[in-house]
């Protein structure tokens, strides 16, 4: 089992519904977020190109945040999901500094918080809330070990990239281009 997500940059309109759906689903305090939207424009008017990406924790197979955590609060569970146990987290921030994707934030209650791929939902057979809400259906989620999963299918059919591959973290968030 290897959970992964693919984001179709050709369809994403950057509406940020994924952000607010995550906030309400997971009670993320207002002013913080576990996912966010990036817009990159290249070129000179009128020869322009734009890429819009919904970004979040890359649930890296080689996760620097887990390696550097002094208490073991950051850990990897079945399916490769990177999680933080709030009660074990001392809020030292080493993981925040180590993450090349800036995917973690200090929760006002004193621990570090991040995307969980909505683990509480997927173990009940549901999709992460961002995937379920996206009006453009640009988010694909599933098990990479299952060749028939949504995410396996779309990665087989489409060109894709990962972010900052040179960091060597083996990210599991793919961007269809």
């Amino acid at each position, binding site marked *: 089992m290897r959970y992964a997500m693919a984001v179709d940059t050709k369809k994403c309109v*950057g509406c940020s519904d994924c952000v607010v*759906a995550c906030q309400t689903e997971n009670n993320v305090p*207002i002013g913080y977020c576990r996912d966010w939207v990036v817009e990159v424009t290249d070129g000179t*008017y009128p020869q322009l190109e734009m890429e*819009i990406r919904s970004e979040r924790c890359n649930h890296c197979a080689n996760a620097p945040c887990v390696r550097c955590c002094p208490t073991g609060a950051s850990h990897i569970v079945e399916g490769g999901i990177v999680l933080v146990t709030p009660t074990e987290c001392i809020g030292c921030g080493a993981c925040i500094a180590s993450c090349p994707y800036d995917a973690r934030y200090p929760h006002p209650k004193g621990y570090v918080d991040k995307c969980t791929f909505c683990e509480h939902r997927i173990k009940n057979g549901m999709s992460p809330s961002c995937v379920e809400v996206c009006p453009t259906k640009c988010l694909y989620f599933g098990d990479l070990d299952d060749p028939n999963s949504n995410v396996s299918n779309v990665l087989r059919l489409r060109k894709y990239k990962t972010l900052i591959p040179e960091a060597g973290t083996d990210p599991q968030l793919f961007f269809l281009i």
Partner: protein
Amino acid sequence: MANRREFIKISLYGAGILAAGAGTYKVIKALSKEEEEEIKKLAIDLKRTPTYCEVCFWKCAGWVYKNPDGSIWKIIGNEDDQNCNGRLCPRGTGGIGMYYDGDRLKTPLIRTEARGKQVFREASWDEALTYISEKMQKIAKEHGPECIALFTHGSGGKYFGDLLKAFGSTNIAAPSYAQCRGPREVGFMATFGEGLESPEPTDIRDTKCLVLIGSHIGENMHNGQVQEMSDAIDKGAVIITVDPRFSTAAGKSKYWLPIKPATDMALLLSWIHIIISEELYDKNYVEKHTYGFDQLKEAVKSYTPEWAYGITTIKPDIIRKTAKEMADASPAVIVHPGRHVTWYGDDTQRSRAIAILNALLGSWGRRGGFFRPETFEMPTYPHPDFPEPVRTWRDAFPGKYVLADLALANGICDATIPVTTRDCSFKGWIVNGTNLIETLPNQKQTIEAIQNLDLLAVVDTMPMEITGWADVILPECTYLERYDSIRTGPARTPQIALRMPAVEPSNNSKPAYWIARQLALKLGLEKYFPHENLEDLLDWQLKETGSSLEEMKRIGVKTFPRSADDLYFSDDEEVEFYTNTGKIELYSTSFLNEGFDPVPTYTAHPEPPEGFYRLIYGRAPMHTFSRTSNNPYLFDLMDENLLWVNPKVAKQWYLKNGQEVFLENQDGVRSQFPIKVRITERIRWDSVYMVHGFGHADKKLSRTYGRGASDAKLITNVMLDPIMGGTGMRGNFVTFILDKAETEVAS
């Protein structure tokens, strides 16, 4: 869905067993772990209540889920709903912020000092309603009941509209008409004999070519259309976007035509010219269904792409290529009518040109073009006839705007300012759910009109600029706290949706129906409001349709079969269009009769003077007009608007990214607050762009006050559409004011 509902029913018993105590212990024991999980999940399901969204006009149906403590947890789209297909947009998802916003209006307020200052005292509902009803009666006695007008946008409009009609006035206006989509309704009406309404019957999911003229789907989060555009992208549809700004949609387009602003008509006429002269039109369709082809052909013969190039800056080969793309996709092509189309004053004619193009391509009534929508008609509870009004707003404009099919908000505003040539002016306004100060152009004039009123009553959930001018403010509860009329609306298949309260009204706020009915009681008009509670009326209506309130509470959305017509015209179908000729009018007889050009022509519009830039405004997907900018969730996504400036312009003015500037328009009107510069290649050098709805001047909006600039404040030049009275608002030019100290003194 059926299976799932059945399962809920079964689990209800399960939950009952759990509650029954030790005697049934064995039964509980018998449940597998999986079943227990399901019951836990379903316990959540059981707490959900149906609603349809009120954050924008798309009205997507959804479910409100609550936390165990009774507070609202989240809102999720209803999978059966055609407007959203189970997926709300960020505003719908963030709709709970409307409920949780601490700045909400909490109790009725009555003004204690002259308008201009916000000095109010708290009042009881009875006192506030008595105040309004007495003023209404006084105005009716002195000037006639028709001198009271209603401005509305949203679900409350129905009840306040009925109240006004019962009182003797039909002057009910929504800025969504003459400040937004009115011109296209009239343009399409003149062509196809019917308007587009909302949601528009664009068959985007099956289109092969989608043409957007300044319409920025994806930034305007018209949910169903955004979803279908995404489906169309998946299926490889060609998107052609015409916009001086590199919009999100432009970024997804095969062709982006970075047109010189205000010249769209030249491009449209040139496309029509090519499609006719190169015989790219749908010959059978045109021959069978249209009227006036020869006149059209003659009228557009000089509009060559070379002619259009000099006006639009779009190269002739691109104009030809894109026309060919449309023709190749025909009839599965949509030249999108847009929504906010009040730009330059010739907007009805521009919409006509769009309609003509669609007619030539044979897309109206065809798969991948425009489908034939059907609306479910809810039965009307019998009530006495409304009195015939003595006068209407039209009497203020003799012989003008005959083709406008709805009241003009700007017209009522104009007719509130007394002039010697008119014997009667409006004396009372009731305003529900529309922030007129930010909605109507020319704020100075709106305020002058307000200063001439004997009564301004505002019903809203939030303090807004308009509430600051009110004599009486009535706090309406949000859509999450009330019943409302059953949602109908045009769709592929007729559907209805229920909104019911998920929670009790906060503070001392009340539902719009209750407010309207209490006013009716005070005015002796109770016979028009026989139902004490709206849910009694809903239950009666629903039972008439074969459903019930009980059923709708469970399912939220109900789908009915189409009554007769097919979704598209069939090949041999004789179609009767509701025009004078019974055909699609390429040459408009109704325009001719009213003295307007029967075929659109090109008019050059003013250009920005040296050192000024055309002010273009638009939407952001996470906000609806000026009404959501204080919503805590949506504020979190976007907390101010930025001024988009092309790098060339920035260099000329030594502007830096993030620098705050004030703006001044051609009439010397300055923005009240500074706006931060965003230097970006995504905007032309002759224009600047900002998202509408920021720069709030009401301090009671604690989050959004003073953030960004208001485009509405800078729109003082209005280009009136002579055909239907729409307010063209894209003819305003702004320059940068960099000396902050000087500006602060001036403002």
